[in-house]
């Protein structure tokens, strides 16, 4: 029983990490129809920024980690906004070029991080409390799982509140449905695009920092590895739907962990791909019915 609890909580934690990465990806595609293959670079940049910040913030004691997380998110948001403004904005309606630019940017990011910090994973300075465990039903659950789950919960609630109760959220929801009509109502949808890229970048960076806590290290290819799962989550959940993305992330995390434990170690990745295939066969538009 304790093993099952550990597997379930770890699966939910992994799903939370996927949600952190995938939420921005889903919003960006839903609103702008941009497949952002550079999203992994936002994640890695945020993780390295937090890693660098932590080294310079040791004087803050217990505050060094939250401040480093904030630094990572700000860096992710800035990179997201700058990429949208300078590289994506000139290419709206030119989808092939967008894909080429974001793929190139993603590859460039990995090369850049490798050039600066080397190809090997660097130990990420984790707060002491994240390395401990909490007993639930006899299972010793690593605390970093709760950190991931809590952060994803806060992000989900924050995004839902933003989308439901603010004018910018109203514009995003309307833009996901019909971007041209939003412009035809006198709204500068390009500013919303920049904001959504910034939100996506910040969320990815948060995922990068907390993913580094989970893995215990930061490496140049970290974002690329997580991006694959993020895309799977977004497709399963339905593009542009935050609720669908959250549900899909949870399902993918749990399936991966359960398959790894109960079937065969390493088969979790295969099971996720099989899950994707099954969802596409049964519900091609994803769980929430929004097509790519």
């Amino acid at each position, binding site marked *: 029983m304790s093993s099952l609890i550990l597997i379930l909580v770890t699966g939910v934690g992994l799903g939370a990490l996927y949600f952190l990465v995938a939420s921005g990806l889903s919003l960006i595609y839903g609103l702008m129809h941009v497949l952002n293959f550079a999203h992994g670079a936002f994640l890695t940049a945020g993780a390295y920024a937090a890693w660098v910040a932590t080294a310079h913030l040791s004087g803050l004691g217990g505050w060094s980690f939250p401040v480093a997380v904030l630094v990572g998110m700000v860096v992710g948001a800035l990179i997201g906004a700058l990429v949208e403004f300078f590289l994506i904005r000139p290419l709206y309606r030119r989808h092939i070029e967008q894909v080429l630019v974001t793929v190139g940017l993603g590859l460039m990011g990995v090369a850049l991080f490798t050039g600066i910090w080397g190809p090997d994973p660097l130990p990420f300075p984790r707060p002491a409390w994240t390395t401990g465990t909490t007993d639930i039903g006899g299972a010793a659950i690593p605390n970093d799982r709760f950190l991931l789950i809590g952060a994803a919960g806060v992000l989900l609630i924050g995004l839902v509140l933003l989308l439901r109760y603010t*004018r910018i959220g*109203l514009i995003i*929801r309307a833009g996901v449905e019909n971007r*041209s009509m*939003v*412009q*035809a*109502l*006198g709204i*500068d949808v390009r500013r919303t695009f920049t904001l959504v890229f910034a939100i996506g970048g910040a969320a990815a960076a948060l995922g990068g920092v907390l993913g580094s806590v989970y893995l215990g290290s930061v490496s140049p290819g970290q974002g690329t590895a997580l991006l694959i799962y993020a895309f799977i989550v977004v497709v399963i959940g339905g593009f542009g739907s935050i609720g669908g993305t959250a549900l899909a992330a949870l399902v993918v995390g749990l399936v991966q962990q359960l398959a790894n434990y109960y079937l065969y170690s390493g088969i979790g990745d295969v099971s996720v791909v099989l899950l994707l295939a099954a969802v596409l066969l049964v519900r091609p538009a994803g769980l929430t019915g929004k097509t790519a």
Partner: protein
Amino acid sequence: MTDILRLSGVQVRIAGSHILQGIDFAVSAGGVTAVLGRNGVGKTTTLKAILGLVPSTGTIEFDGARIDGVPTHRIVRSGVGYVPEDREVFASLTVEENLELAEVPGLDADYDTVHELFPELLQRRKQRAGTLSGGQQQMVALARVLLGPAKLLLVDEPTKGLAPKLVTEVGDVLARVAQRTTVLLVEQSLPLVRRIADTAIVIDTGRVVHVSDAASLLADESLVNSLLGVAGANVDVTPQRTRAGGSGT
């Protein structure tokens, strides 16, 4: 009377098709100007070109200033309202949210006029727009542009797919709106055009082929027949459609 809108040599090419081949016309301030023509001649594209929703060449002036090349949102903010073909309400948003989107920050939205013209929307404000009937969705689409201080309304086939009674009601609303705002109306229902339009512009294969007052055009059956391909001015030339979605170009 001064011209509020003037198009000179407006051309639009989309995916290799030369849809507008040099549109020239002017719209006087006040009243309703109808844009007529057979299906697929470029009426909807003309409205989209004015609004900057499709790339165009040529000159477009609104209220004395050039607006060609200006981003759509700025054209709208300068006083152009747009009621698109097929309404294009935001189906997943409530009626209230659809209207909130059309509000201009910093300006008082004219809900008094909207509620006076469409009292039903007040009762249905919490209902998702996608669940409304076609007529109710048309009310939302019209209400959105009436909230702001539009000087010119571009209205694209507002009666498309509506029952005859609703066509009459939409016509009444447009006639009332035209008392305070200039309306450029793309419409297939010639009886409606006869009732509310002052001027008629006929487009064929991407060019303006006729401009006159609406009454004299529609009184001339042979002219109507040659320009619009219909036998008389009392018919509705809306093409039969077998599926949802716009057929306009």
